[in-house]
């Protein structure tokens, strides 16, 4: 029996407004526990929520970037349940009239474009954070930090259009990229500004009815999402093939053991007793406001990728890498504006720049390198002032210090030696010092030449123009 996988993803994104969604506390990540709190976000007796307009603007921006329709009229609702990270024991969220509906994200699967539809996007408040003295089940006590309580979140629910863990990863990657471009969130899973839960089910291939689904939580990285989904799909297949039925439940992804375990069964499912939030007025959003926000959207990843491919004749792969973050794409555009050899810029960014960033676990906006610096470096290579090899060392220094290339080259005396006379001198010395290699080369061993070239480069501390060294050596050795 062949099975088809059906996956829907529920993604929560933290909006990076300066203050929380219903009070004016700061949202800065990493502060000392319970220092970014006030009576409102602590749910003290008598307090009331007041909506942060910027959070609404950011939510609309994200929704537009995801091709959603923005509701003219939406409202907030109370989602009631008890948990120690919930100051009021209800969460202000949106239930039946969310901010946005009916969007999509386009992914490319095996060269084919596919649309994953977005059912809805709504605004809600985040909970506090619990720290357990041991794992949840065994802990003797727990500590609560309410700094995060009240931070604005948007919840993005996809339709169950995803058909494999691989597609889920592609969807999540694209979603993250799009939202990162809008600037409304850092969307970093490792910092909790991007979170993902999944609904997974299987059904016989060809069937149009949905199988029983389970909800998977606690997948805290892209890798975890893929592994968690792969595991759960296999688990469900095994259950069904053994003649059993998949139980509708919430399951917890255990990263260490690589399995999902049941968390809540259907009997314990929450009845949230949703009702309209009486402390907030309904959200009425004019079409003018929507268009105003739409006009502030930057060029989004897919559009930018297409433009890079068309304008600069870049291959799809290059364009994909360069548009993986907005800052990277901005950097590319700015560099090409100063040094129009797009493919060269692209190669440098994809190799040397990405190597540096990955090795140091940094993002491009976190290093002092500027587009002008890179453009100038490429000009220096172009002019023959330095060799490509030396340029790599200079580049690394530029990334670390932010110094312009000319300065580094000058201070370190890295100007390429192109003077034929000077090179000839060194060549002569190397020939004299390596009679065996010379003999080997004359006997037909090409490898000996490479060695001799290396010796010349060594003697000139890498500064000799490699092309000239090669030519002059060959000449001298012929005679």
């Amino acid at each position, binding site marked *: 029996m062949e099975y088809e996988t059906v996956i829907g993803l529920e993604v929560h994104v933290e909006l990076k407004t300066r203050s929380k969604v219903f009070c004016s506390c700061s949202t800065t990540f990493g502060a000392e526990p319970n220092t970014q709190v006030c009576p409102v976000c602590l749910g*003290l007796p*008598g307090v*009331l929520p007041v909506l942060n307009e910027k959070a609404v603007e950011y939510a609309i921006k994200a929704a537009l970037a995801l091709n959603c329709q923005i509701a003219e009229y939406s409202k907030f609702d109370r989602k009631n349940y008890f948990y120690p990270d919930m100051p009021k024991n209800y969460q202000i969220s949106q239930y039946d009239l969310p901010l946005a509906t009916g969007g999509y994200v386009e992914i490319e699967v095996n060269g084919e474009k596919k649309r994953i539809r977005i059912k809805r996007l709504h605004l809600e408040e985040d909970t506090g954070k619990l720290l357990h003295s041991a794992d949840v089940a065994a802990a003797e006590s727990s500590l*609560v930090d309410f700094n995060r309580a009240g931070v604005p979140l948007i919840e993005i629910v996809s339709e169950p259009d995803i058909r494999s863990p691989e597609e889920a990863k592609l969807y999540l990657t694209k979603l993250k990229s799009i939202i990162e471009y809008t600037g409304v969130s850092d969307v970093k899973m490792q910092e909790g500004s991007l979170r993902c839960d999944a609904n997974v089910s299987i059904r016989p291939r060809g069937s149009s009815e949905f199988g029983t689904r389970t909800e998977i939580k606690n997948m805290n990285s892209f890798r975890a999402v893929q592994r968690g989904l792969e595991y759960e799909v296999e688990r469900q297949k095994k259950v069904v093939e053994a003649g059993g039925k998949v139980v509708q439940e919430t399951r917890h992804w255990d990263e260490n053991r690589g399995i999902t375990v049941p968390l809540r069964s259907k009997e314990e499912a929450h009845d949230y007793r949703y*009702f309209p939030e009486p*402390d907030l007025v309904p959200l009425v959003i004019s079409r003018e406001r929507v268009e105003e926000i739409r006009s502030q959207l930057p060029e989004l990843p897919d559009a930018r990728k297409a433009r890079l491919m068309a304008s600069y004749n870049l291959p799809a792969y290059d364009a994909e890498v360069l548009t993986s973050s907005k800052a990277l794409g901005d950097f590319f555009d700015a560099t090409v504006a100063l040094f129009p050899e797009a493919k060269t810029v692209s190669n440098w960014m994809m190799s040397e720049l990405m190597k540096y960033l990955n090795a140091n676990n940094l993002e491009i906006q976190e290093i002092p390198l500027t587009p002008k610096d890179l453009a100038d470096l490429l000009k220096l290579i172009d002019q023959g002032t330095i060799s490509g090899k030396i340029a790599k060392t200079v580049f690394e220094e530029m990334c670390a210090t932010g110094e312009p290339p000319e300065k580094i080259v000058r201070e370190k005396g890295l100007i390429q030696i192109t003077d034929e006379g000077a090179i000839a001198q060194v060549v002569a010395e190397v020939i004299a010092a390596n009679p065996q290699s010379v003999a080997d080369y004359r006997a037909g061993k090409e490898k000996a030449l490479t060695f001799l070239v290396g010796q010349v480069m060594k003697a000139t501390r890498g500064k000799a123009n490699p092309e000239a060294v090669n030519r002059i050596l060959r000449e001298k050795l012929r005679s």
Partner: protein
Amino acid sequence: MKLYEMTLAELQALLAKGEVTAREVTEAFVRRVEEVEGAIHALVTFTPELALSQAEEIDRRRRAGEPLSPLAGLPAVIKDNIVTQGIRTTCSSRILENFVPPYDATVVEKLKKAGLVLLGKANLDEFAMGSSVENSAFFKTLNPWDLSRVPGGSSGGSAAAMAAGEAAYTLGSDTGGSVRQPAALCGVVGMKPTYGRVSRYGLVAFASSLDQIGPITRDVRDNALVLGAIAGHDPRDSTAAPLEVPDYTTFLDGDIRGLRIGLPREYLAAGIEAPVRQAVEEAIRLLSDLGAEVEECSLPHTEYALSAYYIIAPAEASSNLARYDGVRYGLRVAGDDLISTYGQTRRQGFGAEVKRRVMLGTYALSSGYYDAYYLKAQKVRTLIRQDFDRALARYDVLLTPTTPTTAFKVGEKVDDPLTMYMSDVCTVPINLAGVPALSIPGGFHQGLPIGIQFIGRPFAEGLLYRVAYAFEQSTAFHKQRPPL
């Protein structure tokens, strides 16, 4: 006349003329509290030292020639569900018995700017749920007119304190009648403003779409003064109206010629005691003599109001009271695990009526019942509101009794919640509609006060004060004092 028997306006005049200091006034009220508190038990917290130091500060500022508000230096008692920074605020509940708020309610901030002298926090039915203060977790408050009877509720402490002269003015809160009903039973003036007229920030929420803070005072002028000081927009309350606050005292001109007064017949139906009915009839005669046109009208959906209220209010309350769980503040009774800590804390911390309403409200919102109860009740609410809109388009104000009876005996209704709920039958529809209403003394029966209620259009508190003042100045009910 003793200082504690005077109105705000009379006291303010003495202060302005320098005939008496704020400290002397405050001392008089402190002595009065000491004299009668043992009999009526109106206060959960008594703050005489604070009051005296605040009064002295006002005296200093007056001597320095600083401009002062009309309320400056006059002692107030505030219902204990309104948050006061640094001063215990209990909601008359064990679960907040030792809760000291780190912030002030907006109305308290406003009064402080106006020169507040805080004499104490008044007893109430726990979390404002009740009509007699018999649901207070601490002690009962007694009616100064007859110590074997209830003062009404839930703002019974404020009303009793006002009637007994323990304060120059008081604040209560009204969700289904909790300012007006005790004002009526205690022979004082109580206003429930239009929903959104006064900020709810710092009012411990009972039913968010119904709650309003309102003044309980000696007379109509005093009430107008206090409302003017506490009303207005508040950026911390999204439901507070961004409308200007008029000087309500300018409406006190006594002229009601041509005023059209409607008499909703549903409010004079069976269940209204004869003496109360009689007081309303005499009020009609008096108002007609003063030039008003009084005519019977109908608010046809009145009979559904109590039921709708007792679904909507508990539903909202069940959510508003969820935060009292022993985790962040208030009582914590530690159990073996989280659920039992929640359970024990709330079991021990909440009284019977609160539990009753939390359960009712949870049920009304639960899956499978939401449509039949909560949603349906809200639809009925719309019909009730439309009744008022239609009537108030034809009439300037409506006149009704405030309560069906005079003050009942302690213990008389407390074992029968539904009978207790019936005390609110004349007041509850007003909260559902969100319109303003004012209760003033309208007579006496066997020494017990009777209240009459004027209901107005949204944000027409001025007109309510006008008609109430005209009536009041033609009677002497507001001049009587309990034999305490």
